[in-house]
């Protein structure tokens, strides 16, 4: 198990967003986290990446508790993520966005950066290009990131996450705002990442076709609780999942 969520709870101003969540993610899998609006999926992702603190419980990553570890150190451990609302660095060029991901493993001291004349290593730039090639953005490398269409910005975020050389990527609604063709490309890319790079993926997504198509395992959240867990076909048939989505009889 690469990621274990044990009894995680979180409340916002009296409202319980997460209640004793338990589930784990197997290494090398695409694990989807689904559930109706307000179920607490993004909150859980935020807690895993360390942006928000949980009230109680524990999270273990590669068998080490990451409770209380600040977000940038979690990234160093190998947790990367993308954002539902697109947090690209708009004023940087596309390849520079990737460079910010490479910063983690290649950073130099502040002082050293100031006295090194030749700037960024050629190697790193070449590395950034190859990542861009991997996510099909090489032809856009010199554009300002903010000028890309949404679909490509999503790919860029994914590429940037890849650049940190992670073991686990958290994807927060990567298909939101994409058209059919883009969604299809994305699902292929996600599978490729799992298969070729052996990176585990935790996916929050509303596009059920995508989720059902690529996931190895699905956890369903409703009202801050896990209501079902299983393989896609099982989930589709699960009556409590159906009622959570369609309403009760």
């Amino acid at each position, binding site marked *: 198990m690469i990621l274990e969520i044990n009894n995680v709870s979180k409340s916002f101003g009296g409202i319980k967003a997460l209640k004793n969540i338990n589930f784990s993610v197997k290494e090398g899998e695409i694990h989807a986290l689904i559930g109706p609006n307000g179920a607490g999926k993004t909150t859980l992702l935020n807690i895993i990446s360390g942006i928000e603190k949980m009230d109680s419980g524990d999270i273990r990553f590669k068998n080490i508790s990451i409770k209380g570890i600040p977000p940038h150190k979690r990234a160093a451990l190998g947790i990367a993520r993308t954002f539902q609302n697109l947090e690209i660095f708009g004023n940087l060029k596309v390849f520079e966005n990737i460079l910010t991901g490479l910063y983690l493993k290649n950073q130099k001291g502040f002082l050293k950066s100031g006295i090194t004349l030749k700037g960024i290593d050629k190697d790193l730039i070449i590395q950034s290009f190859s990542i861009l090639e991997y996510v099909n953005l090489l032809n856009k490398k010199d554009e300002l990131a903010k000028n890309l269409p*949404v679909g490509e910005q999503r790919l860029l975020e994914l590429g940037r996450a890849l650049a940190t050389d992670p073991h686990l990527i958290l994807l927060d609604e990567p298909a939101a*705002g994409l*058209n059919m063709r883009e969604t299809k490309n994305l699902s292929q890319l996600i599978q490729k990442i799992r298969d070729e790079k052996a990176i585990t993926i935790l996916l929050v997504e509303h596009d*059920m*076709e*995508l989720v059902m198509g690529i996931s190895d395992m699905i956890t369903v959240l409703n009202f801050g609780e896990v209501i079902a867990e299983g393989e896609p076909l099982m*989930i589709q048939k699960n009556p409590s999942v*159906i009622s959570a989505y*369609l309403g*009760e009889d």
Partner: protein
Amino acid sequence: MLKIKNLDVYYGKLYTLKKVSLHLNKGEIVSLIGSNGAGKTTLLNTISGLIKPASGIIALEGKDLTNLTPEKIVKEGIAQVPEGRHVFKTLSVEENILLGAYSRYSMKTKREIKESIEKIYELFPKLKERRKQLAGTLSGGEQQMLAIGRALMSKPKLLLLDEPSMGLAPNIIKEVFSYIVELKRVFALTVLLVEQNAKNALKISDRGYVLETGRIILEGSAEDLLMNRDVQRAYLGRDLDAEVRI
């Protein structure tokens, strides 16, 4: 009564509504169902004028509303109960209700508004009990009623309800839905109901539309939709025919 034609909406850079057309007849309850991110809320916000459409037409009783500001749209008779209720938490219940009448408030209508408030209290006696309480201290169900009551204060012809069941316990959800039917009768309203809770919504509706990734993929009478397998597919990505084959 309400006519929407070929509506295209971008939310930031996201192309969220694609050539959406729908209509409501006077006195109907119409449900708009679909999974998260399908664009339901965006559609309501566009009708209310909070979001400007890129192209398309929205008309109420033949009057074009497409480029009016939200203030003017309220005056034209469309009120929205937003998703998440959005009550003014640190104002009292009564102040919340009163603010609902902002669009028709003047020296002359003061009296009339007082009467309207009483009418709301008749419908929701619980709110009357708690009129001096801060809205933030109400329970979820009570806040939902307050949000509905507040919207009714502008004397709308058309009420837009965005996920009234969200975050509520099942028994409260039933109560809320029964109120909606009651309201429609008392105020002779037309209601556009956006719900994830498809079964409950369709039960009280005359007709329904199914929205998927920004497109209307189905429309029909409530009963038809309840039976339709595509509705389930839209929600769960489940291809029932394929399943049969296995």
